[in-house]
C-alpha cells in the first residue's frame, strides 16, 4: 500500500458508475438490488404497470367501477386528493425553516420537499389515469373556466409543482456539482417558499371548494360552506403528521447517511408534535362548529354520524391528545403513533368527502374495483421507490461537503 503515492487518485470513476450505481459495478449493483423489499415492489409493479396499460387500452369502464352515479372513485379520492394533502409537508416545513426561522428543522426540510414533489407527481399520475381525455389536459392553458374551483386547483397544482421542482433542483445541482446554478437557486429559496405557501393555501383549500357545489350529494355532516377552510387546516395537519412519519422512517432506513450528523430527529419530532396538537385540537372543535352551522347535529345519531365521530374523535381528537401527551413528556414514540393516526385520519377525511359520504343517498354505492386499488398501490410504490433512489444518491438527508456552509 505504501507504493500508492499520497494523494494519487485512481482513474476517475465514470459519472454513471459513481452517481447512479453508487460506485458499484453493474453486476454488483444488480445483485445488491435483490432484497425482499424490492421483491415485493417488483411484484406490485409487475401487475400494476400492465394494469395501467390496460386502462389506457381498454378504457375506464373496463378497469374501474365508476358509474353514472359515482363519477369520482379512488383515483381521485385517494391518489389525487390524499396524495396532494399528504404532500403538504413541503410547504409547512419549508415555511417553518425559511419563514419562521426555525433553522433547527432544516435537516428534515429537504426530505419534506422531496416527499411533496414526488407526492404531486404521483397525484398528477393518478389524475392522468382517471381523466377520460387526458390529452386535453393542456386545454387548461387555452380555455379558462374561471368560474370553476377545479380550474383553480389545476392551475395552482401546475404552479406549485413547478415551484417544488425548482426547490428540488437545489439538492440535484449539488449532486451533479453545478455550483453556479446552485447558488442562483439557493438565493431564490425564500421567494420559492413564499410562493409555495401561497399556492398551497390556494389549492389545498380549493380541493375542498370542489364540493361546495354539491350540497345535496355530500352528506350534511361533511358538507359545509367552510369546507375549504377545513381542507386547508387538514393540509397543515397532514403536513406535520406526514413529516413526523416520513422522517422517522427515513432516519431509520437511511441511518448510514445521517450517522455523525448529530441530527436530533427526536427533538424535531417533539416540536412538530406540539404544533400538531394545537392545530388538531382547534380543528376538532371547528368540525363541530361546522356541523352546528349546518344544522346537522341530528345526523350524529345515524350510522353516518357514528362514522363521522370515528373520523373526528378517533382520528383527530385522539392523535391530538397523543401529540400533546407525547410532546409534553418527551415521549417520541407516542408522538410517532399520533403521527400515523393523524395521517390515517386525513386519508379517511379525504376518502369520506370524495367517495364514502359522497352520493350517500344513492341506492347503489361505489366500491372500487381491485384494478383501481392495485393501480393506486402501484403509484404509491413507484413514489416510494423514487424517494429511495433519490435519497440514496442526492444530498437530501445529508450535507454535500462541497456545498456545506456555516450553519447556525
Amino acid at each position, binding site marked *: 500500500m505504501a507504493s500508492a503515492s499520497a494523494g494519487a487518485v485512481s482513474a476517475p470513476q465514470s459519472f454513471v458508475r459513481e452517481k447512479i450505481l453508487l460506485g458499484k459495478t453493474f453486476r454488483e449493483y444488480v445483485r445488491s438490488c435483490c432484497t425482499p423489499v424490492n421483491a415485493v415492489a417488483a411484484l406490485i409493479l409487475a401487475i400494476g404497470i400492465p394494469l395501467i396499460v390496460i386502462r389506457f387500452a*381498454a*378504457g*375506464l*369502464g*373496463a378497469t*374501474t367501477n*365508476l*358509474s*353514472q*352515479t359515482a*363519477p*369520482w372513485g379512488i383515483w381521485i379520492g385517494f391518489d389525487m386528493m390524499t396524495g396532494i394533502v399528504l404532500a403538504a409537508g413541503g410547504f409547512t416545513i419549508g*415555511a417553518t425553516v*425559511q*419563514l*419562521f*426561522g426555525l433553522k433547527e428543522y432544516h435537516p428534515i426540510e429537504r426530505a419534506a420537499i422531496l416527499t411533496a414533489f414526488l407526492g404531486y407527481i404521483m397525484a398528477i399520475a393518478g389524475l392522468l389515469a*382517471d*381523466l*377520460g*381525455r*387526458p390529452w*386535453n*389536459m393542456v*386545454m*387548461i392553458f*387555452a*380555455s*379558462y*373556466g374561471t*368560474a*370553476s*374551483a*377545479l*380550474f*383553480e*386547483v*389545476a392551475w*395552482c397544482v401546475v404552479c406549485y409543482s413547478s415551484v417544488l421542482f425548482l426547490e428540488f433542483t437545489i439538492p440535484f445541482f449539488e449532486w451533479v456539482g453545478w455550483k453556479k446554478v446552485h447558488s442562483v437557486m439557493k438565493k431564490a429559496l*425564500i421567494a420559492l*417558499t*413564499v410562493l409555495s*405557501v*401561497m399556492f398551497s*393555501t*390556494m389549492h389545498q*383549500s*380549493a380541493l375542498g*371548494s*370542489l*364540493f*361546495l*357545489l*354539491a*350540497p*345535496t*350529494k355530500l352528506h350534511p355532516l361533511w358538507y359545509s*360552506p367552510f369546507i*375549504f377552510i377545513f381542507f386547508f387546516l387538514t393540509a397543515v395537519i397532514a403536513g406535520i403528521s406526514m413529516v413526523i412519519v416520513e422522517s422517522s422512517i427515513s432516519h431509520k432506513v437511511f441511518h448510514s447517511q445521517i450517522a455523525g450528523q448529530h441530527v436530533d430527529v427526536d427533538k424535531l419530532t417533539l416540536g412538530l408534535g406540539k404544533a400538531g396538537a394545537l392545530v388538531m385540537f382547534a380543528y376538532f372543535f371547528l368540525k363541530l362548529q361546522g356541523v352546528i352551522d349546518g344544522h346537522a347535529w341530528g345526523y350524529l345519531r345515524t350510522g353516518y354520524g357514528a362514522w363521522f365521530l370515528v373520523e373526528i374523535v378517533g382520528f383527530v381528537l385522539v392523535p391530538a391528545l397523543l401529540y400533546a401527551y407525547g410532546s409534553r413528556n418527551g415521549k417520541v414514540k407516542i408522538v410517532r403513533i399520533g403521527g400515523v393516526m393523524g395521517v390515517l385520519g386525513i386519508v379517511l377525511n379525504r376518502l369520506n368527502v370524495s367517495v364514502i359520504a359522497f352520493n350517500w343517498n344513492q341506492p347503489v354505492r361505489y366500491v372500487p374495483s381491485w384494478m383501481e386499488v392495485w393501480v393506486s398501490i402501484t403509484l404509491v410504490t413507484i413514489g416510494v421507490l423514487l424517494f429511495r433512489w433519490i435519497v440514496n444518491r442526492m444530498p437530501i438527508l445529508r450535507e454535500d461537503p462541497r456545498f456545506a456552509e456555516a450553519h*447556525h
Partner: protein
Amino acid sequence: MRIGRRGFMKVAAVTAGAAGAVSAGAASAASEGSDGPGVLVDTTLCVGCRACEAACSEKNKLPAPPEDAKVMLQRRDTAPQVFTVVNRAENANGTVRFAKKQCMHCIAPGCASACPVRAMDKLPTGPVVYDASKCMGCRYCMIACPFDVPKYEYNALAPRVRKCTFCADRQAKGLKPACTEVCPSGALTFGGRAELLEEAKRRIYTNPGKYSSHIFGEREAGGTSWMYLTDPDTDLAKLALRTDVPEKEIPSLVSGALSAPPFVMTLWPPLLMGLYVFSRRRDEAEKAGAEKEDHHG
C-alpha cells in the same frame, strides 16, 4: 351642515332609488335569464306516447328507443346514448302520470360553472352545450349537476359527456327543439321562459285544484329553462326527477370561496415576508447576544 327637510327628502329618495336599483340588479337570475328560451312541461297533458324520445334519438343520431311501452314499468334514466326518457308513475288515487326527463338547461348552470375548460358552456342564447374537443374528461360536471343529468361514455376510448343539447343548432335556425315539435298532446310547449312562466301561473290560477301551485324549475337551482306543472298528488321524485335541489344557484355556492385566491395572492407575500424579516431579526438579536457573551468569555 344643515340639510333641511327638502334636502333630507332628496337624500332619502336617492338612497331609496339606489337601494331599489341594487336590489333589482341582485334580483334572482331567474329574472335575468327570463328572456331566454324555455319549455313548459304539463304532466297532466302527457299521455306517455314517447314520440319525444323517438324524435330526439332521430335528430341526434342515437339508437332508436325501445318501442314497447312496457319499458316504462321500470324507472329509466338518461344514458350516454339516451338524451331523454319518459317515466311513468301511479299516484295514490290511481291516476297514471308521465314525465319527461332531460337536461334542465339551468339559467345559471352548475355544470358550466364547474367545467375548468368550458367544454360545458352556456350559450348566450340559452342552451347549455358541450364541446368534446375541449373536454378533459374530469367528470366534474357530473358532480355539479343537481339533477344528475350528464352521463359519461365510460366504455369509449375517447369518452364524451352526453346530454340533451336543447337542439341548439335547430334553435339557431329558428326551429323548435325536436321533442317539442312532435309532442301530440301539447304537454310540451316551447317559447320564451318568462312567457311560459306566466302561462304556467295562468293555468294554475284558472284551474284551481287541478295543478300543484309549485312550478318545478321556477326557482330550483336558481331557475331552469325547463319547467314542470304537476297535479297536487304527483310526486315528481317518483318520476325520476331530483326534487331535493336547493333554490340557490349552484355557481353562487362556490363564488364566495373562489373570490379568496386573489386575496391570498395579494396578502400572503407581504405577510410571509414580514414574518421572515421578523424571525431573521430575532435570530440576529439572539446571535448578537450570544456573541457578546463569547467576547466576555
